């Protein structure tokens, strides 16, 4: 990267820390620190919700997925708008009326203390781990592509987010999220424009889409019904709805965003921003990946996108690598010529010729993929590391192919995407630690100033913990799926407990043991039927918790939580 690009990245880092820390002036009470006194406007909360969900993994991994696999990943999000609509009329008013700090605090009002403690502990466990992955994803890529040491990359991403979240609380999280979201959209938009302008004139956009489409990369919809497939219409619609209900409805990192809204209506409106824009935005991110694939049809792509691996393989297995490179260059030339012929035949409307060239083009593409598979296998053997390089495609493209300023903007956008997720998660981990454990179990009745001090320490602790996990998360494989898999073990079951809150006769005993039954069932399914997609784990977990919880509640005496608060579900529904 040029010094101008580094300057952009540095300016972003300085600005975001300054902007976050200056928010600490207004956060002298615990309700201000965690909930901004429930005073934030819907659009800021809505952008914060989106920024929290859009991590660096989304930006880098999903674009890479678009380049290698095409548009079908967008089906994963088909349940999101439905989930948002359901949450807007159920849990959102619920939480706001209960005036809680955490989603799990509400469960004590409805059921009992042990259900709250268990769900909050599960949240801390799964989020604490996954925030480490969210730090490590961009750190791995930055260290390989920019030549930074890995611990330095972790510190560069983690430290600023920890500092501004620790001092500025939720105000800092939300307002930096807003600006980071603008930067992310700007970065993506710039990338899209550059890619569209980079399509060769004799190919054109239609020709480019034809060629990409011939490889199946524009096949978005798969209507087959299979529990083993994650990216199908039905998995996305049904499994995705349950996953998004769990994530946006019961995960403190998201619930806390809309708890800061001024009113129930503003909280609803904030969720509707995601409902509107998530699928179009995700489609755009994937399309960027598809266009990078198109770009590399006409310009020679690297054999290995992880440049660090490429250098190691060249040094240690030079002759083998050179032979693969020669095969790769030949295959690329053959595919390039076929791609140009195909685009020309399609735009001329010559279907018979286009069909014949399509076969030729696909054969060239298969040969290229075969050489890549051999090269990845060689990289794995030589480096002893996971050779998958999907997450490196876009950074390699941006840094080696795009003109000055765009790489700096892109790296700043990746940092923004990472920090906007990390800060929300640290803020929510601290909230759950202090509100659900420290204040509830260990030191009740202390002053507000005391809890505020402890909250800042807890934020700092989780920040250091996340960076520690990040240093060991590298070996965990595909970063996108790791984060989702972590959550899916608990997510569906925790959602089941919240659904159970709407069952008038449900009791604490049912929710507590139902939760164990749900998690046990999901664990059994993933052990005995490992082919079942993790998206369906959420459905299974939720259904088992509700069924077992309802059964165990039959004829059970009311518990303390019920007697203290009555059925909040019934009150909210009334």
């Amino acid at each position, binding site marked *: 990267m040029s010094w101008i690009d580094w300057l952009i990245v540095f300016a972003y880092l300085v600005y975001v820390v300054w902007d976050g820390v200056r928010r600490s002036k207004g956060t002298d009470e615990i309700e201000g620190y965690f909930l901004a006194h429930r005073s934030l406007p819907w659009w800021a909360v809505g952008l914060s919700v989106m920024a929290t969900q859009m991590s660096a993994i989304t930006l880098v991994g999903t674009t890479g997925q678009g380049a290698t696999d095409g548009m079908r990943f967008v089906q994963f999000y088909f349940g999101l708008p439905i989930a948002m*609509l359901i949450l807007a009329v159920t849990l959102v008013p619920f939480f706001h009326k209960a005036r809680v700090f955490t989603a799990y605090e509400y469960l004590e009002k409805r059921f009992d203390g042990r259900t709250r403690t268990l769900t909050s502990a599960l949240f801390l466990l799964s989020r604490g781990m996954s925030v480490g992955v969210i730090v490590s994803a961009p750190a791995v890529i930055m260290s390989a592509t920019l030549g930074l040491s890995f611990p330095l990359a972790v510190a560069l991403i983690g430290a600023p987010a920890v500092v501004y979240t620790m001092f500025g609380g939720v105000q800092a999280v939300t307002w930096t999220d807003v600006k980071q979201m603008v930067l992310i959209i700007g970065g993506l938009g710039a990338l899209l424009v550059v890619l569209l302008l980079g399509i060769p004139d004799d190919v054109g956009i239609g020709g480019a889409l034809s060629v990409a489409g011939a490889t199946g990369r524009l096949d978005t919809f798969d209507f087959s019904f299979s529990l083993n497939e994650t990216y199908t219409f039905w998995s996305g619609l049904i499994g995705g709805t349950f996953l998004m209900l769990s994530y946006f409805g019961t995960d403190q990192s998201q619930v806390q965003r809309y708890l800061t809204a001024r009113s129930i209506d503003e909280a*609803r409106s904030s969720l509707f921003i995601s409902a509107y824009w998530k699928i179009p935005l995700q489609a755009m991110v994937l399309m960027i990946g598809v266009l990078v694939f198109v770009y590399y049809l006409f310009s020679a792509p690297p054999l290995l996108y992880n440049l660090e691996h490429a250098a190691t393989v060249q040094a240690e297995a030079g002759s083998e690598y050179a032979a693969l490179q020669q095969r790769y260059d030949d295959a690329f030339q053959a595919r390039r010529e076929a791609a140009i012929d195909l685009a020309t035949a399609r735009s001329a409307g010559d279907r018979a010729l286009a069909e014949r060239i399509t076969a030729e083009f696909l054969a060239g593409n298969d040969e290229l993929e075969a050489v890549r598979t051999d090269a990845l296998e060689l990289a794995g053997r030589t480096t002893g590391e996971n050779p998958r390089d999907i997450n490196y495609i876009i950074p390699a493209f941006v840094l080696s192919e795009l003109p000055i300023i765009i790489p700096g903007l892109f790296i700043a956008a990746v940092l923004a995407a990472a920090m906007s997720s990390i800060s929300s998660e640290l803020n929510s981990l601290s909230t759950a630690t202090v509100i659900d454990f420290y204040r509830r179990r260990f030191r009740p009745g202390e002053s507000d100033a005391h809890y505020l001090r402890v909250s800042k320490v807890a934020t700092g602790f989780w920040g250091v913990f996340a960076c520690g996990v990040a240093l060991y998360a590298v070996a965990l494989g595909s970063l996108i799926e790791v984060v989702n898999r972590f959550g899916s073990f608990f997510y569906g079951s925790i959602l089941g407990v919240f659904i159970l809150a709407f069952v008038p006769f449900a009791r604490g005993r049912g929710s507590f043991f139902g939760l164990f039954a749900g998690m046990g069932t999901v664990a059994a399914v993933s052990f005995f039927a490992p082919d079942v997609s993790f998206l369906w784990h959420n459905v299974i977990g939720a259904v088992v918790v509700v069924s077992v919880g309802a059964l165990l509640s039959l004829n059970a005496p009311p518990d303390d939580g019920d007697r203290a608060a009555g059925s909040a579900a019934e009150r909210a529904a009334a």
Partner: protein
Amino acid sequence: VKPHTKWLAVRVIAVQVITLVALWFLQSTYGAG
């Protein structure tokens, strides 16, 4: 549910339908079939 919320919900569904139709158009026009 307030009329305002219902109206928002209708608009959310409309935006999704437009997006899905656009994706379907891409698939049916350029897809591998």
